[in-house]
């Protein structure tokens, strides 16, 4: 199993690197794709945790009823700009790895854009700081997904990753509707992070375990 091969590898590397008689050797290994997927999975859990605090603070800023636990506003047509994580179960199961990763990549790229567009004057300096920190972490997730896709040989989804903005629905027409948009943005972010954890768990099981490559570069050896 993975543990044993790691142990052997480490021993070999240490032994070879410590032998004074041999000329200098370079030991290096490549990160397995499965480790990248694990890292991405870990990131989604971390973001989910961060989001809990951020959403709580932001919804308090919006005020009741937005911060009430049973708040369930109508999903107005305009709110469908935000990509929905909700998907038919069989459809979800049947997704190819490429499609699964692409859906995640597209969703978080769009969500990141909308988050960044949240009112720069919103609330206290503390809230703005939290938002900024969350956006940085979310950017990290997008890059991590891109990394997994490229290591599996999949092309990144083409086309604009910003909000498509169909004419007439670009900006919320009044402050109350904007609050509703903000509420749904946070809700969808939350749903996506729940879904992504399952997406990456599934991917972890399908991709072969870490391939360890020992590269020995000996000068004049």
């Amino acid at each position, binding site marked *: 199993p993975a543990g044993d091969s790691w142990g052997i590898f480490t021993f070999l590397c240490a032994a070879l690197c410590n032998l004074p008689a041999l000329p200098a050797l370079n030991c290096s290994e490549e990160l397995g794709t499965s480790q990248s997927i694990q890292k991405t999975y870990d990131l989604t859990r971390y973001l989910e945790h961060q989001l809990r605090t951020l959403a709580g603070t932001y919804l*308090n*800023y*919006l*005020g*009741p*009823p*937005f911060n*009430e636990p049973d708040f*369930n*506003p*109508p*999903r*107005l*047509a305009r709110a*469908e700009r935000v990509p929905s994580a909700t998907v038919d179960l069989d459809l979800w199961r049947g997704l190819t790895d490429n499609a699964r990763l692409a859906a995640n990549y597209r969703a978080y790229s769009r969500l990141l854009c909308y988050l960044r567009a949240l009112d720069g*004057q*919103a*609330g206290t*300096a503390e809230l703005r700081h939290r938002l900024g920190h969350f956006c940085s972490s979310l950017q990290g997730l997008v890059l991590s997904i891109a990394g997994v896709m490229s290591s599996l040989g999949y092309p990144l989804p083409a086309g604009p990753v910003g909000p498509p903005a169909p004419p007439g629905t670009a900006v919320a027409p*009044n*402050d*109350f*509707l904007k*609050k*509703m948009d903000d509420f749904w943005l946070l809700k969808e972010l939350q749903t996506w992070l729940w879904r992504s954890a399952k997406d990456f768990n599934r991917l972890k099981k399908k991709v072969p375990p870490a391939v360890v490559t020992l590269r020995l570069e000996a000068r004049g050896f």
Partner: protein
Amino acid sequence: PLPSVSPAADPAVISPQDPTLLIGSSLVATCTVSPESHLRAEDLYWTLNGRRLPATSYTTLGPTTLSVALTRLNGSKQQSGDNLVCHSRDGGILAGSCLYVGLPPEKPVNITCWSKNMKDLTCKWAPGNEGETFLHTNYTLKYKLRWYGRDNTCQEYHTAGPYSCRIPKDLALFTPYEIWVEASNRMGVAVSDVVMLDILDVVTTDPPPDVHVSRVGDLEDQLSVRWSSPPALKDFLFQAKYQIQYRVEDSSEWKVVDDVGNQTSCRLAGLRPGTVYFVQVRCNPYGIYGSKKAGIWSDWSNPTAASTPRSERAAGGCDPKGGEQNTTLRRELKQFFGWVKKHAYGCSNLGIKLYDQWRVWLQKSHKARNQVGKDPST
């Protein structure tokens, strides 16, 4: 209930939409449902910040329009606006309006500025009247050189607290600046009084570097402090002033030495022997470029610690206070035996003899202690 996707047109319209109101004012708002929703005025109700408003405040204005009267409004519960919502009977949200209830801003006050090494200018101020306007209030720091027409706006905010701004470059010397702060929110604007200052009068600098504290030979009540002139202004600090503060290790009371002048060394005297002291130094760029005014004191340097030598005449042990205790004790005993000598007749001989013997013993042991040196004796 399952969330439903409403038709493309808004299900209802509220008027006024997102109004701004003065604290204490009243408001009548109307909710008009669209014909597609098949709702009527009697199917509607209002909530404000999640709490249902009493039906007694409602008035039906038409088959599809319901109004609500709000009186003596308090300041907004949150700066994003109070949420006034029109609902259908089953609780569904049809429309909402954000009410911004507050006060116009007051004139910002107490503008103070300082220039670090003449490289930048930072100013801070206080909002007028404790700043509670219930509305988001924006502050803008503006400045211009006297006798030159152009107003400039400061860009870097919150550098020294929430009400502060920093002008990072292109500072002009020898011409006074006019500086003021504008506060604005949805209800209005307020402008502070103009402050006029010369950069050279508000210069501050870094704390003096390389602070060293050392003993003065064997002197047990003195320490010598040395430091360097702050490098950023070292070519200009001909008349700099310095201040030293010091305290014993376990006290929080600082002693300040004020008359250090512009030397870069000083000797502290009258200190306790065998004690650890913390010392800090700070600098005031007084008289920079011929300015007649004092500048602004720098921060204190990081504390430097040093200890005074221990006195050898102290009772050889580790407790520096031991010596003092012995002298007081001796004095008291002396007085007691003196008294016994005077007042006790019968036993007086015993008392005197004992007293004399004790004194002789005391002198002997003192000599012995001095000869042995550092050995702790009983």
